[in-house]
């Protein structure tokens, strides 16, 4: 048995480009600690992202990391996981990447129950392009592209994910890195698709007071919460007066890969009586 890995073993040589005070720093340090807690092997860990401030995060981790194109982190991570099922595969990104340009993928990864962890650092704004409205920007908020106030209702990511039948839905707050770490650990341990919304304030474009505003609205789920109760989970998500943090919903369902192995590959092998040679595959083209 080799030496246990330390948090520093998960740090890459790159320095984050984030603004001082960004919530994503807390998330990153919680990720290092979660990896250490789980003793993930860097060579068997993939962290992928699309585009955005938070999507720069994979570069700061020592593992197989990928910073792809805007909105496509979930299908990319799906391809990684299906090709290397024993690896821990984590997708990260922000509210723009996930709920705007990439929103079409979430429902499908959830219903297929791809065994990946999706961490969304939700800051209610587009930060990398310097302050435009995102799908979670509150109604009426002035941004650079909504000069007279944001016209759209905000997405409620937790409610959306429960509706999509995600098998693990949690919410946490970058202002409490210990809780973030706990949620990430549980999410990675969950077999199936796990979603963690992290309220991660953008101090530059949403204001320094964001940490305090969120902290004042935060409540934590206690142990009496029945995590398999879908209706209760909706109630929690619907409460927009407070941010209820914790594992809001969780249910063990067969993962896509388990179904592929048990229901597809096994059946296919029975049909073909083992692994057919190419010449055997040619037989079906016999007239």
């Amino acid at each position: 048995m080799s030496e246990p890995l330390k948090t520093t073993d998960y740090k890459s040589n790159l320095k984050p480009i984030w603004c001082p005070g960004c919530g994503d720093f807390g998330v990153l340090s919680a990720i290092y600690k979660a990896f250490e807690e789980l003793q993930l092997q860097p060579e068997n860990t993939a962290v992928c992202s699309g585009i955005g401030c938070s999507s720069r995060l994979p570069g700061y981790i020592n593992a197989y990391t990928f910073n792809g194109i805007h909105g496509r982190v979930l299908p990319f991570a799906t391809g990684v996981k299906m090709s290397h099922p024993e690896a821990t595969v984590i997708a990260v990104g922000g509210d723009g990447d996930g709920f705007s340009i990439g929103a079409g993928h979430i429902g499908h990864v959830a219903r297929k129950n791809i065994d990946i962890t999706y961490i969304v650092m939700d800051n209610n704004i587009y930060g990398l392009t310097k302050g435009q409205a995102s799908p979670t920007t509150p109604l009426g908020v002035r941004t650079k592209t909504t000069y007279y106030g944001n016209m759209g209702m905000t997405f409620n990511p937790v409610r959306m994910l429960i509706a999509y039948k995600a098998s693990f839905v949690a919410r946490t707050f970058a202002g409490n890195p210990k809780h973030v770490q706990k949620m990430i650990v549980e999410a990675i341990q969950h077999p199936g698709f796990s979603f963690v919304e992290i309220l991660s304030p953008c101090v530059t474009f949403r204001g320094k007071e964001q940490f305090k505003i969120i902290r004042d609205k935060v409540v934590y789920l206690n142990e009496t919460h029945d995590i398999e109760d879908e209706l209760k989970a909706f109630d929690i998500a619907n409460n927009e007066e407070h941010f209820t943090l914790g594992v809001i919903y969780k249910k063990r369902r067969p993962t896509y890969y388990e179904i592929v192995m048990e229901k597809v590959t096994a059946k296919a092998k029975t049909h073909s009586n083992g692994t057919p040679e190419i010449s055997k595959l040619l037989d079906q083209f016999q007239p």
Partner: protein
Amino acid sequence: MLNNKNIVIGIAGSGGEGIISAGEILVNAASSEGLFVFMLKSVGAQIRGGESSIRVRVSDLPVQSQGDRIDVLVVLSWKNFLRFKSELQLEEKVIIVSDTDDPMPDEEIPLTESQREFWYKIPFAKLAEDHAGTHQAKNIVMLGAISEIFSLPKEALSKSIKKKFKYKTAEIIESNIKAMTAGIEYVKTQVVKSDPLTFEYQHREPRLVMQGNEAIALGAIYAGLDYYAGYPITPSTEIMEWISRYLPQRDGIAMQMEDELASINAILGASFAGKKAMTATSGPGISLMNEGIGLASMAELPVVIINVQRGGPSTGLPTKTEQADLMQAIWGSHGDSPRVVIAPCDVEDCFDSTVLAFYIAEKYQCPVIILSDQFIGHRKESINPESMRGSKVGFRKIYHRDTPSAEDLKDYHRFKVTETGVSPMSYLGIKGGEYLGSGIEHDEKGSPRGDAANHAKMTEKRWRKFGYIKEEFRFERFYGPKDAKLGIIAWGSTKGAVKEAVLKANAMGISVGAIIPQIIYPFLIEPFKEFIENKDRIIIAEMSYAGQFRRYLRGFLRFSQYGVTVVPFTKAGGAPFMVEEILDKIIEEWKEMEARR
């Protein structure tokens, strides 16, 4: 022109009349006799019902195309034939076989006087009802009848019928055989043969019957495909259908995604994780994938993308062919995004091109696009089984990407600038090879970098591979005499009509030669230079109204420097070139050259 060794049969009717089944039975029967077969389907946009037609060319000699004109027209319902009239061009001395009880009066049927000369009327539906107990077997009655009239292989036909219905009950098989026999007996006793067409052939070893799309799927599995992700789109869907059934038998995974954006990114993920990955699409789907293809160029991920071209732009003609995605394939993504483009020219070449695509993708770590089209993808051809099994024929090399050595891993640089531009590629599971892959410009290590000097260096590195690809491959197809003054350049599926027209022209004493590339991009210039060197006049034939291929070639070849006159020969897609269209063009240009001499 009637030829007893080569017969083109057109069958038209409504979708529910078993036209396509009948065509498949005929194709299988002919292939089991070792004949050369070419079958094209044409269906309306309706999902069920509506009209359909097929064209089956059966020949004792090798065939390159679908055959221009119909020798034998079989009509199960005249009403539906009318909708296909423009696609089923008839010989002036066409032989008609139709149902005695068709409700359309003869005078309303649009046939010329000479086309009415040989017209057999057979009560298909009634015979089916009487002998098989259902009018649905009328397609089989028809097969029996035409096999008797034109001496098609009857025993093979009855075997094919049995095979077609092998999962049905014994009664169903029995009643279909009765239907076929009824057709044969009716002709024997009630029909007096007046036409001159009697098919003559030699029995040979059975040939395989395959669609272009199936050949691509098979080629991918041969090349070691591990992971497929795709989204259904006509006319590429058969690739995914075949793969989703057979890839799991070989331990691979096939996933249907929510859209083409997901498909391309999923295969990039699989490639990043070390697997051989592919997707297939067409038309609107390939447009959606372009951003992802650019990412593959930037992150140097080996992937194979199949584009079975259809008519465009936009939704265009989903069930028809065109060759107008060429420039998009080469230059489609934003930025200077190196990718390789390969064009198969027939069904068998679909197999080879796919194996080649994986070889290049894996060896040079870049995206490879295969530009097939509906004309190849949806047609069936009979193929020599040895050419599929043998190792000598075509391209059969398999390559797995180069992985880093222990030395490389001491200080791993994923994007190390090497002599060839190819850097050893690490992937999940390799300890010490962890790196950041990205679509953002990066340095040799993989770290994001925004400076111009690094961008220039890394861009050059990614393009450097192309020099080596050009060096490694030199494969092209020449037809006709090399010293011909008249030449044709074409690509992809247009090869069939061009080759056949060139061979016909040569037989007529016209000296004309053709060249068809397989790798389209990077452009392997040498064989083209040699080809145009001694030419006076070159026809560039393509199914692109805007002449994309011609414009592309002009970027590399200074035709005027060689004193060559370029003759554009373009048409919008929809219907593929006919041999006679190309041949007429050859003759026209030949006469023009003679006149100037």
